[in-house]
């Protein structure tokens, strides 16, 4: 039967990785994967996917933001219960980290399958820039910060940044790197506003304050991809961005270790915070061909299978959700990540907070970065109150 799958992985690298799922699905089951790619999650895909589910014309499977509000769809009975499949394939046994399954769990049942792990916690550094100022490439955040004056003197941008959302991830990275594991858990998992008002978070906020002094709208580039170019060209020295930036760097011909360096957890923490992408399987309307439902089941099984996980994540540059995979083919940066993953995954805000809260936090960060009249204290206070009101 034909199974329609919606997702917003449309760039070359993304499409290649999802194609692995499709290939394996079709090869192994004889069903047909009908691909509905919709670029741009926020305004492109999200409303469409939701409308179709609400409108009673659901797709067979779909990518959705792994967040808390999918709960509503689940509660409304619109999502298929995958618990049986999970049990059958033994998901809990090989699953890399329970925290990642949490958003998929509703009243003890599992409604979605995470398919990869992404982490924002990377500091990317330009080899060329540091050659230019004749300094070694920093190995952690503190060294990096120390190198800023020299960089600025040489006319090199200490921190490259794309306009818009790329800044959103930075506070989380600083929190995990500078604030440490406990702080992340206290804030993201326990929603403890006092933790925000505590000294550890102040350090994070100060780091952000420090960072905004070298960020200027004048020097921002349109997209994060352009930042990659700046790094390779030595125009910018560093950047905090998620692991997917590597795709860009590699396409532009960059070689890790030679043209750029990647430092996970800012070189300060041995745990990465992260979240993942998940697939949901909407309940198909009555009268749907049982073949299609069968195909749904098959697909659910396949996306968490070893073969598919390996193929998918190698292409995608993300980390698999299974611990039992041989990732010898992974590149240097990925290998570093996998090592850290053994220490367990810290929950990122995206995974544990509602996107409503995240959106407000992001707005706050953007405002703070741009507007120097907002003090560190203001930032902390507003952050705290958002965490307080988070549900």
């Amino acid at each position, binding site marked *: 039967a034909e199974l329609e799958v919606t997702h917003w992985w449309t760039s070359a690298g993304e499409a290649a990785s999802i194609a692995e799922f499709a290939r394996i699905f079709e090869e192994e089951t004889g069903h047909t994967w009908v691909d509905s790619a919709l670029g741009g999650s926020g305004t492109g895909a999200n409303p469409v996917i939701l409308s179709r589910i609400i409108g009673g014309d659901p797709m067979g499977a779909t990518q959705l933001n792994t967040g808390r509000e999918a709960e509503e769809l689940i509660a409304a009975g619109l999502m298929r219960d995958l618990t049986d499949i999970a049990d059958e394939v033994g998901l809990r046994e090989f699953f890399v980290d329970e925290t990642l399954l949490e958003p998929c769990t509703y009243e003890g049942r599992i409604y979605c399958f995470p398919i990869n792990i992404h982490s924002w916690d990377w500091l990317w550094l330009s080899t060329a820039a540091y050659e230019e100022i004749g300094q070694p490439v920093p190995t952690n955040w503190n060294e990096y910060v120390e190198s800023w004056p020299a960089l600025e003197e040489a006319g090199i941008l200490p921190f490259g940044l794309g*306009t818009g959302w790329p800044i959103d991830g930075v506070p989380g990275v600083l929190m995990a790197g500078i604030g440490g594991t406990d702080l992340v858990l206290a804030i993201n998992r326990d929603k403890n506003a006092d933790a925000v008002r505590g000294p550890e978070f102040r350090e994070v906020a100060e780091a952000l304050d420090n960072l905004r002094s070298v960020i200027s709208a004048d020097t921002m580039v349109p997209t994060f991809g352009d930042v990659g170019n700046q790094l390779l060209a030595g125009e910018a020295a560093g950047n905090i961005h998620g692991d997917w930036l590597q795709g860009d760097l590699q396409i532009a011909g960059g070689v890790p270790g030679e043209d750029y360096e990647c430092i996970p957890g800012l070189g300060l923490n041995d745990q990465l915070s992260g979240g993942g992408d998940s697939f949901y399987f909407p309940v198909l309307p009555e009268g749907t061909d049982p073949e299609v439902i069968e195909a749904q089941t098959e697909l659910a099984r396949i996306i968490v299978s070893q073969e598919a996980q390996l193929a998918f994540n190698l292409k995608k540059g993300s980390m698999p959700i299974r611990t039992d995979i041989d990732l010898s083919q992974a590149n240097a940066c990925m290998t570093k990540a996998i090592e850290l993953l053994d220490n367990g995954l810290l929950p990122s805000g995206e995974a544990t907070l509602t996107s409503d809260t995240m*959106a407000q936090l992001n707005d706050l960060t953007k405002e703070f970065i*741009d507007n120097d009249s907002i003090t560190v204290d203001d930032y902390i206070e507003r952050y705290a109150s958002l965490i307080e009101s988070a549900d």
Partner: protein
Amino acid sequence: MVVTVLVVFVGCTAWTIWYSFTASRLLPNNTFVGLEQYQRLFATSRWNISIRNLLIYGSFSLVFTMVIGFLLAVLMDQKIRFESAFRTIMLYPFALSFIVTGLVWQWIMNPTLGLQGTMRNLGWESFRFDWIAQSDMVIYALLIAGLWQGTGFVMILMLAGLRGIDEEIWKASRVDGIPTWKTYLFVVLPMMRGVMVTAVVIIGSGIVRLYDLVVALTKGGPGIASEVPAKYVYDYMFTAGNIGQGLAASTMMLLTVMIIIIPWAYLEFGGGKKS
């Protein structure tokens, strides 16, 4: 059709207003929370900035679009050669999806990649064109791109209006010795009242719904300096999954529109009854 339209617009408005009083998240639900969404809305600096931006952008955009549109239409009405080519050139920005043309403007206005950088490289060191990176100027950067996209259509609309003016009126004003520009201003313009109202509504609704331009050009930045209400509504409805909040913002927008529309409708219809 008439009924459908009524149902849809009245229904959607009612829908919007009702759910703005609920705690709806990803899906509409009926948990009534009173004015909570509104309290949060007005406590949000992004919303307040959005409103301010809309006012600034709106007034400038309305005035400039009307003026430029009209001037261009007048120029096109002078029996010029290659009229069709000129018309198409002015209209093409309207044809192209803003997702990409916005990116091009973003390049052009980008201080390093764009005009400013290029000019400085050419030796004009003092050249400045960095509005897009200035929190207090970014709204005018939006305006430049917005006018670029929107004036062509208004020009066409006004041109259609001009084409409907009876040639005899022109003759009369020429005999009366009225200079051309005065004829346009005092005779033709008032005769085009209908077209003008149409243009104002089109521009106005474009302003209220302003979204694509911001997303493509500034993504609301720098910081949140160029956020606009419609973007707030969409972001909270679709990305942040907080329909209640989005609809509260939307209701506020509708309320504002209502405040403008009602006196106008009164003038248009109440006054019209006399004749």
